[in-house]
């Protein structure tokens, strides 16, 4: 996929003095439609794969498909392929920090979860009973 007009993406601090040229580059309609149908297809695929029992793999499969979909949205709908490289760096670096946050927290939780104690009194309290159901009336 080559960009319709991709030349003007200069460095961020050179904000185009002198060339007041056209910096918009409309996406062709066929491309928009193609991306949309690809996304629909992937949605069907992810629903379909959830009908198989893949065990632990399942969550990774569905996440992989979701990531492909997200990639399509970012690259085409959000126009990142034709955007300044800086914007791409910014959004991907955010994922690094998300990974850092989730990674450390999960790693720690794996370690301390043996020590977590639920409140037994409350467990008793929350047993299903007819009284509880009446609350929703």
């Amino acid at each position, binding site marked *: 996929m080559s960009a319709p007009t991709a030349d003007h993406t200069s460095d961020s601090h050179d904000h185009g003095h002198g060339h007041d040229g056209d910096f918009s580059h409309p996406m062709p309609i066929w491309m928009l439609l193609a991306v949309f149908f690809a996304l629909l297809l992937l949605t069907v695929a992810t629903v379909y794969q959830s009908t198989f029992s893949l065990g632990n793999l399942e969550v990774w499969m569905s996440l992989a498909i979701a990531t492909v979909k997200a990639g399509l949205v970012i690259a085409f709908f959000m126009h990142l392929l034709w955007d300044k490289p800086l*914007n791409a760096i910014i959004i991907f670096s955010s994922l690094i920090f998300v990974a850092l946050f989730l990674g450390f927290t999960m790693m720690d939780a794996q370690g301390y979860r043996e020590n977590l104690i639920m409140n037994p009194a409350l467990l*008793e309290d929350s047993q299903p009973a007819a009284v509880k159901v009446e609350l929703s009336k």
Partner: protein
Amino acid sequence: MTTAVAPSPTDHEHDAHHEHPAWLAHHFDDAEQQFDAGKLGMWIFLVTEVLFFSGMFCAYALYRNRNPEVFEFCSTFLNEKLGAINTGVLLFSSLTMAWAVRASQLKQTKTLIGMLGATLGCAAIFLGVKAVEYSHKWGLGLFPGKYYVSQVEGAPHSTVPYLWYLCIPALILLVAFVLYYVYAFVSASKFHLRVAGPLVVAASCFFGGVKLGQVLEAEESHGDSHASAGADAHGHEHSDHAGHDHAKEVSAPSVNLLGEAEVVTHDVAVSPAETNTPESNVNQKGMAGLFFSIYYCMTGVHAFHILGGMAVITWLIVKSARFEFHSKYYGPVDNVGLYWHLVDFIWIYLFPLLYLIT
């Protein structure tokens, strides 16, 4: 973000070398600088959005990792079809939004307003379906955290008309928009007509979404002869896939064995090792309730982002109706588009993580 600030007369004295049109803010040198600044600002804002949601994804990961059986049990209460339909609706709205950006660049104002209206309508359908989902769950007592009501077979549905409550704001808006349309029609103002049309359509779309949701929800319950709370959860696997039977087997005992589970959990501090066994009691506040907390937080915050998106799209419609956008000034459409795609992006992850757990 980058709305043009009309330069005050004094500013012109300083800008002798550049003629500043009204849409170019006085502190920018040219259109491209203004566009780049706005776009960079929006990308950075999206970064904050990603990190904002990451907190809830982290909570999700923590609890799913700790109590996978709770997620398996609770996912059966989520209607996969409604989730899939909503995914399609959001994807379509992303398409129309991207198309709207294209139209604004090409100065096709009619297409632009149409596409923005379609995006708004899709958002309304999404919320309509969501309203059905929420009200259905509330009716079953599937509340977050400590308000969770343990699900028992044959328990009566709640009679509180939650769906009506959720529809009231939309109804008020619909009436307001229709009145606005009538006003526009009477005063024969083309500008107001251009704005009011999409708004009326969008507000009605909400009820279309509600209808769609109700039909699909009823289909699910219909496949099951006894429309009780507990059975409803399993009912929805009946309808489609054989593969789901396996999931049913995992979750079914947890409901049926409540009696025994009571004995197990009375006096023990339950360690995760024990809760991993399928017999343990997941159907209670600290287990299923926690799942629904996460579910409501994630989808709720997402829904608020949809509402915010709808507000800014409405603002765009007003601006488009004034023919403000052209190839050198379409930043607002582009930036709102980026925001809208991010909301879609988040949903792309939410859908399999919440609805498709087996």
